[in-house]
């Protein structure tokens, strides 16, 4: 137990650090953090590469294609590349780099993979409908006191709590 307690940073301190990063983002750029927006750029860019004409006719994807500029050369894409590198540095720093599939011993690896894909698909879909995920809509929105931020946060966490019982075998 003692070992575990020292393994990760104190959560309140980590929260303070995250808050300072978020504040720096507001001060420098006027906007907060994001993640799902960069994932959308990957999708838009892929669709655009496969068929530019098709992407232009799509009501949704066409909103994110502007002339010659690649959707991959955007603020959020660079920010999420930073997350990837920052996470890696932290993992290297704390000795946590290794390939691992995390799951409850009560389920098989195969089931965990299916659940990860289904959960990801739902999150990806919901983040487009709800205009942002836990970072861009909930956390960022809460810092600016936006109603959208608080509503999205409550909807995400409320639903996860409400469904937790039905998915308990996958985690505990």
């Amino acid at each position, binding site marked *: 137990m003692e070992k*575990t307690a020292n393994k990760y*940073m104190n959560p309140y301190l*980590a*929260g303070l*650090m*995250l*808050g*300072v*990063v978020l504040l720096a983002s*507001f*001060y420098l*750029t*006027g906007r907060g953090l994001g993640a799902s927006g960069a*994932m959308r750029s*990957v999708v838009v860019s892929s*669709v655009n590469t496969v068929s530019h004409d098709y992407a232009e006719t799509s009501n*949704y994807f066409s909103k994110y294609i502007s002339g010659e500029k690649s959707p991959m050369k955007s603020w959020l894409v*660079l920010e*999420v590349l*930073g*997350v*990837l590198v*920052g996470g890696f*540095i*932290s*993992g290297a720093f704390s000795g*946590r780099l290794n*390939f691992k*599939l*995390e*799951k*409850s011993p009560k389920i098989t690896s195969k089931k965990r*993979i299916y659940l*990860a894909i*289904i*959960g*990801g*698909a*739902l*999150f990806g*879909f*919901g*983040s487009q*409908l*709800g205009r942002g995920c836990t970072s861009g*809509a909930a*956390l960022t*929105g*809460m810092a*600016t006191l936006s*109603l*959208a*931020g608080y509503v*999205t946060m409550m*909807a*995400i966490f*409320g*639903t996860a709590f*409400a*469904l937790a019982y039905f998915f308990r075998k996958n985690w505990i």
Partner: protein
Amino acid sequence: MGPIIPLFEISEEINLLIAFLIGLGFGFALEQAGFSSSRKLAGMFYGYDITVLKVFFTAAITAMLGLLFMNYLGMIDMSIVYVNDYFMSSAIIGGIIMGAGFIIGGFCPGTSVCAAAIGKIDAMYFIGGSLIGILLFGQTYPLWEKLHNAQHLGSLKLSDSIGVSDGILGLLVIAAAVVMFWVGEMAERRFKREDINNEI
């Protein structure tokens, strides 16, 4: 006076470099907090590990207080700071779908990128799933377009909608967080799972 980039003519290259550096801090903080572990994140919903609550609310409050003070001291022009556009139905329904994705998949988009960075295989599949979900949304957009744009209330602030000042709301958010931290820490003792905590 901030925000710096929209107010001063900062080149695109510098802007993208700043994006990368902010992301670096974001990813580092998430990983140090333990958000690179799906079972740690899921602990929130079973009470054995409420790190999510502690980190999330501490971060939101830190940035909120920073913005309130910067505004008070005239260090930032809040009229340029983006306040999320509120579309009531899509925010609620989108949030519900994301919540289901969270408890089923064990991550959210930001944490999945951070977890994949240190080699978590479940996170890599989650990212793949997210891309599929986004593609699916885009492909079926005509079905959701009406819902997506319904009940547009603009960049509404919670403080304005309940009729209190930003400062008072800030105080209420802090008070609510302190109560939640206290309840959460009790839950952590009550629903303690040494076996899981030793593993993550």
